[in-house]
């Protein structure tokens, strides 16, 4: 448990030694990068396996609030595990496809994974900002490493709004520090209700701007289509399945623990109904994302907008803040990560082999190589939330918690489900086009062993979660309890206990 810092330190170490080892032994350095990612996955799994409740880990002997602490609980453990697997699979795919020859690519992805782990585990708001910035810097560079003419456009389109939003975030930090005198998340959480209502709302807005931007919420997310299209497919996959997942996690943590003081229910800052606002913006995101995806011909853009829609649904779930909605939101996030990863990698492989990025050009691909059609189908079913596939259980819980909210909830549910109908349309349109018999002859798409290994693992996960949600249910169901209420195993309590210890 105390060794959670390794999840951040080791990839950083390997990343910074990469320029040197990459020069000397280019092949070995790639293998080392991959081994590091494998280590991340195993270590994160080990930490998740050993988690019994929230534990605060002190870094470098400086007790919080002076030092920085890392907090491991079920939520961060689960999210870190999924993120590490997502990054491992995407980079393994990228490495095996032989696209990125330069060691710098792997250095940047290691930086990205280190910063994502930092985002997940850190217990300090400023540290969170730092990790967001590192993630951002590596993300911009990775987008720009794409080999198409949208790459630098996509990178700049992400960099500028994200930098503006991070300035806002820093303003929020300054205000919190000047009013509460601490930046430790747990400490802020226990005293946030004493902040003046207007100021509290202002702080919440400043912090949330950056988080919502990374969480792909409309209208903060104008970077999404450009960046996804410009980046290499494996990096798009990491954005959708890793970065969005981590940002959703931060949204949940800040929203439920800090702004709402762990009370559960709709988030309120003073007299401002922040929860209602997030709920509304989530519904708008679902609708806008799905309808925009409907109009796309470019597969990667379509998948990007579909991610936007899914994140909107998750935000709706988080904003409600009941046990079942939080559970549903996390379930939906995790299953979306796996399903979208499969979709992005398969689509990326097809685009790479055929050079065709629009679904209308994909006619007949699955006639020659049916397994790709099946992979896209299973991924789609997982994302849409069809029963027997992983997305269903998340969506099921979310619908169950929105539909009971009275008239507004009923309307919102109707809108979300209507958007899901649209989602079903464009995914099946995509899959069907692949199975159509086209006029032109299509070359057979071939994949290597690594791709089949990754995709079959992902299919297994999607189907297994769909058939038996109980596999991860045991850990997931403890999460709402650790966030809401004042349970002994809760996040805030765990850190506060340590703080009391430090005062003696």
């Amino acid at each position, binding site marked *: 448990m105390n060794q959670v810092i390794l999840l951040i330190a080791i990839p950083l170490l390997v990343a910074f030694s990469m320029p040197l080892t990459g020069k000397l032994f280019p092949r070995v350095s790639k293998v080392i990068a991959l081994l590091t990612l494998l280590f991340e996955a195993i270590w994160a799994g080990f930490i998740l396996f050993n988690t019994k409740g929230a534990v605060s880990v002190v870094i470098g002997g400086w007790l919080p609030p002076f030092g920085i602490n890392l907090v491991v609980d079920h939520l961060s453990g689960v999210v870190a595990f999924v993120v590490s697997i997502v990054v491992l699979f995407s980079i393994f795919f990228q490495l095996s496809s032989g696209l990125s020859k330069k060691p710098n690519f792997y250095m940047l992805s290691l930086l990205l994974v280190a910063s994502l782990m930092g985002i997940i585990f850190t217990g300090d708001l400023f540290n969170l900002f730092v990790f967001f910035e590192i993630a951002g810097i590596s993300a911009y560079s990775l987008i720009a490493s794409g080999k198409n003419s949208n790459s630098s456009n996509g990178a700049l389109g992400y960099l500028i709004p994200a930098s503006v939003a991070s300035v806002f975030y820093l303003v929020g930090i300054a205000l919190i520090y000047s009013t509460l005198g601490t930046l430790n998340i747990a400490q802020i959480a226990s005293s946030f209700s004493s902040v003046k209502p207007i100021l509290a709302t202002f702080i919440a807005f400043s912090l949330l701007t950056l988080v919502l931007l990374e969480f792909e919420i409309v209208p903060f997310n104008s970077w999404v289509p450009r960046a996804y299209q410009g980046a290499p497919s494996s990096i798009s996959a990491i954005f959708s399945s890793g970065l969005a997942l981590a940002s959703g996690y931060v949204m949940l943590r800040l929203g439920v623990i800090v702004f709402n003081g762990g009370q559960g229910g709709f988030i309120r800052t003073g007299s401002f109904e922040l929860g209602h606002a997030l709920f509304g913006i989530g519904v708008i995101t679902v609708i806008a994302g799905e309808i925009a995806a409907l109009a796309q011909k470019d597969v990667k853009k379509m998948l990007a907008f579909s991610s936007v829609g899914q994140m909107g649904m998750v935000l709706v779930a988080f904003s409600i803040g009941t046990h079942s909605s939080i559970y549903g939101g996390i379930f939906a996030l995790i299953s979306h990560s796996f399903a979208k990863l499969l979709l992005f990698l398969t689509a990326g492989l097809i685009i790479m082999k055929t050079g065709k990025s629009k679904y209308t050009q994909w006619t007949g691909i699955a006639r020659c190589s049916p397994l790709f059609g099946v992979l896209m189908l299973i991924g789609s079913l997982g994302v849409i939330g*069809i029963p027997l596939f992983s997305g269903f259980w998340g969506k099921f819980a979310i619908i169950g918690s929105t539909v009971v909210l009275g008239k507004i909830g009923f309307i919102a549910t109707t809108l979300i489900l209507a958007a899901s109908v649209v989602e079903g349309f464009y995914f*099946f349109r995509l899959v069907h086009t692949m199975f159509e018999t086209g006029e032109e002859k299509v070359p057979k798409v071939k994949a290597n062993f690594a791709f089949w290994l990754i995709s079959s693992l992902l299919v297994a996960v999607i189907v297994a979660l769909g058939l038996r949600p109980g596999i991860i249910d045991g850990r997931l169901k403890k999460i709402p309890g650790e966030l809401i209420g004042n349970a002994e195993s809760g996040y805030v309590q765990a850190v506060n206990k340590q703080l009391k210890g430090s005062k003696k």
Partner: protein
Amino acid sequence: MMDFILPAIVIGPVLIGLLSFLFPRKMQWILFFLTNIVLLGAVFYIRDRQNLFFLFELSYFPVNKLTMGMAYSQLGWFFLAISTVATLLFSAFSVGFNDKKHATAIAPLWLILVGASNGIFMAHDWLWFFIVWESMSWTSLLIIGHGRNKSFKAGIFYYLLSLAGTFALLMSIWLIFRHTGNFEIGSGILFLAQASVRAPFYALVVLALFTLAFFTKSALFPFHMWPSLAHAEAPDDFSAYLSGIMIKYGIFGLLLVVIPVFAASPLHAFKAVSGVPLPLYFTGWISAVTAAWGTIMAIFSSDMKKLMAWSTVANVGYIGAALSTGTSLGYAAALFHTANHMFFKGAIFASLAAVKYRTGEREMHKLGGLAYVMPVTFITFLLGIIAAAGIPPLSGFASKWMIFQALFERKLVFQSTMIFFASTGAFLYLFRALHTVFLGQLPRRFAKVKEVGPFMSFSLIGLMVLMLIPGTAPGTLLKPINSVLGSMGFEQVKTGWFFVQGSTTAIDGGITTFAFVLAVAVVFLLFVLGGKKKKVEMLDNYTSGETPEDWNLTEERYHYGNKFYQPIEVLFKWVPLGAVEEKYRQFGNSLVRLGNLIHDFFQGHSAWGWQLVAGIALLIGLGVM
């Protein structure tokens, strides 16, 4: 009694379906046929074993101790039995149909679909019902949209409606769960019945959501257009299954939920019009409109599969109208007609598939005279349309008669008129189909067409038998239907093997059959003894010795089946028959346009920081609201 036979009839076909992906196509179809034989045995093995159930627990957090599974019910068993019998015959047909030239790869998916279908009929709780319902939806989409571009458009339209329906189902399931704390169907119905007094608005919303789900599946107005697309474009041998069995899921759902709620709720809970609760009266109107609409569209169709698809819509309208009377006679009539329609529409679609198998044509005016070369197919089709038109002594007569009796009992004048109009109109289109496809002159290019092979003939003959028996002896189906009604707590219909008592009068299948046989014998005698007969070549009479090719005209233009009912079409020109489809299309187009707008918003380069401002403004606005 906990037993594994219930899950076996669901998971068995699914597993065999998944396995059969590995086999060559011919094997897949044989496997499909064999599985259906075993299923038939299993279904009759579980007959009347009332306390059969299979439940299992699922670890799923928001619901403590989530149990889901299947249980035997008389209603479900009735549907299961008729659908299994029909599926077996269809599968026999498919084994013959899918030779090298016509082979499709749908057998594994179809097996999965059969499993899901069995699951729907044996559902014990909403969750299970929902899971198998949705699995059924998307597997059927994959089958309908199999390969061709045009059929996908049909399939996706069907799937969109169906997805909207399933999501309505999802919402209503949670709305009930919120109060009952479990997903059981039985307790949900009881709760809704109580709620109809205490919170009528809530009960109506939930019922409306359920009804929406089932209406989309059963293609009742305003979702009446999807069969004409999907049934027509689906693989030919699958159309029989689609039109015979899958369209009945909605009817099953209505009987499972909506009807029991109205039956269980107190009399004063809903306002009543001529003894029918207002919501049911409303669905009755919708059904009647659907019946009339389907009939008119069928009259105008020149594609034989489209014609029969519209006829299916009309028939579902009859069934819906019978259900909406809220009397046990109506329920019996609906169940009876459901079974009959399953067999006769299956027979019709199978014989049309046989025609297409041999000729490759779907447009009616390109065919003709096939009765000479395909006698078995012809007789099947003939019996099918006799049954569909409701002429004694075939099965459709008895059930249509019962529907009218049920409507008369409630004195529902308007609905009776509409249904009467529809079933008269049925003569028009059915006769047209018979005459243009099977009678008249045989085009020269089809002179060498042969009768279909043994498997398909077996299937067609089987379907013939299934149309004849209930017509002569309605009791064969009405007795099981009576036990269904009994198990649901309704009054039973007075019936013997041959005899049925309606609300105003009674009929006897034996006597009508006898009269019919006698009449046919007399006519046949007159035909044999009558004057000289001469065979006329196809083009002899139309062209007066001229060759149409000289004027660049094709033979089809001279086929009298071409634009057969143009006068009637002119008559109905003022009715906006395609309006609903047009509305859906416009809606879809505007969605795409909206999507492009949203995308442009994202793509706009000058929106660097403005979206942050817009986002914060939106947050503030929504929060203050």
